[in-house]
């Protein structure tokens, strides 16, 4: 982690990793999709729609992983002042938000055939919606503050405040749900997932994780370059001002 603090060294690492990651991602996605559609048996309760689980659950996992990554990076920014920590956080936010969005939409599409409605305010979907809002807030804050240093620290504070609040929000939504939900429990996927369904699930999860890392590294590189461009443009303006003076 410390040796990667040097942006230039980090960039050369990214350069080397990207092709391998891209290849591995594509291969695993291919295997995962094949398993999801041709190998996994239909669920005896849900029939074929259980296949949506193979995209919904990994997306949800990565949505949460993304936020955990941002929260950890936030600690890196605020406590250890690691130079790439806020770059990591900023790059991760849109990716995490996209996975959250996918989790929400696929969850909704799974819900319609299963429960007859596109949206239910059950604890899991509601918490995922709140997570999406937290992501949007982070992205909005990044956009609103021009100076990268201040933006990084402000977003780090917000990320940590959100991280501390997430368990509380989850708890309150759970509680709220038991208040309003009659005894019938809506289980997505049954009490235990059959082993024949686990393999496609894990393969898709790993594929999504590799995709996350791949896109994250590229986005981090773009952000590092963006800051260099910004610095150089400011030098350019300064030189021009001097030349005119």
């Amino acid at each position, binding site marked *: 982690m410390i040796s990667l603090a040097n942006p230039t060294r980090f960039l050369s690492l990214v350069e080397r990793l990207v092709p391998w990651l891209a290849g591995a991602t594509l291969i695993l996605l291919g295997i995962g999709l094949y398993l999801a559609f041709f190998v996994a048996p239909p669920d005896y309760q849900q029939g074929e729609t259980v296949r949506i689980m193979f995209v919904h659950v990994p997306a949800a996992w990565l949505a949460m992983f993304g936020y955990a990554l941002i929260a950890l990076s936030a600690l890196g920014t*605020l406590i250890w002042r690691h130079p790439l920590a806020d770059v990591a956080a900023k790059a991760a936010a849109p990716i995490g938000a996209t996975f959250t969005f996918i989790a929400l939409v696929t969850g909704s599409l799974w819900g319609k055939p299963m429960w007859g409605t596109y949206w239910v305010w059950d604890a899991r979907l509601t918490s995922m919606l*709140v997570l999406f*809002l*937290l992501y*949007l*807030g982070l992205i*909005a*804050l990044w956009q*609103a*503050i021009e100076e990268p*240093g*201040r933006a990084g*620290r*402000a977003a780090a*504070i*917000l990320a*940590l*405040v*959100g991280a*501390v*609040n997430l368990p*509380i*929000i989850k*708890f*309150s*939504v759970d*509680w*709220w749900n038991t*208040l309003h939900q009659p005894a019938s429990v809506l289980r997505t996927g049954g009490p235990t997932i059959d082993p024949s369904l686990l393999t496609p699930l894990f393969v898709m999860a790993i594929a999504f994780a590799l995709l996350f890392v791949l896109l994250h590294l590229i986005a981090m590189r773009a952000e590092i370059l963006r800051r260099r461009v910004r610095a150089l443009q400011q030098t350019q303006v300064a030189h021009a001002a001097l030349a005119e003076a």
Partner: protein
Amino acid sequence: MKAALALLRRDIMLAWREGGAIGVALGFYLVVVAIMPLGLGPDLNLLSRIAPGVLWVALLLAALLAADRIFHNDYEDGALDVLMTGPLPLPLVAATKSLAHWLTTGVPLALLAPVLGLLLNLPLAASPWLVLAMLAGTPAVSFIAAIGASLTLGLRRSGLLLALLVLPLYVPVLIFGVATVSAAVTGPASPWPPFLMLCALSLASIVLAPFAAALALRTALR
């Protein structure tokens, strides 16, 4: 301590003299609650069922309206820089200003709520619990709003951005606040469990939020 009290008194006086700020928040509260039935229909049964929710949501929005006032005026005229280098630790400054916001916005809104509840057919007998719940929950609202205010200090469209950032954090307050009032209105469940959760949320916010706000202030003013 004396310095903190002086700061508190100053902030309250400023808010009072501005007059408009408190009045606008109360007026906004009234307007939002008043147009709800226009949007939902005059069925009194429906209204009384959703009254706790409407009253709480409208309160959150009204409190947020006044939130960027917490630091903004002092930021604009440089007083915040003075406060930062002054004798008071910055978290205490943030806490004092949050407290001022609660006293000048949260408390008046909470006291107005039963009157607005009448518009929504909320039984008058529920008023004590309504006011109690709101008095217990609005400290959390003010102290968390201060975090949003300090993060968005000096930014364009800071009001909307603040609301976007802070509203998800209000979910627990909203849930337990509404549950308290609903339990008081419809029974048989006791309003005490959600009420105590509300108190816990406020106490935790009072203790923790000022540190986050202070950190954000330092970030904004560096």
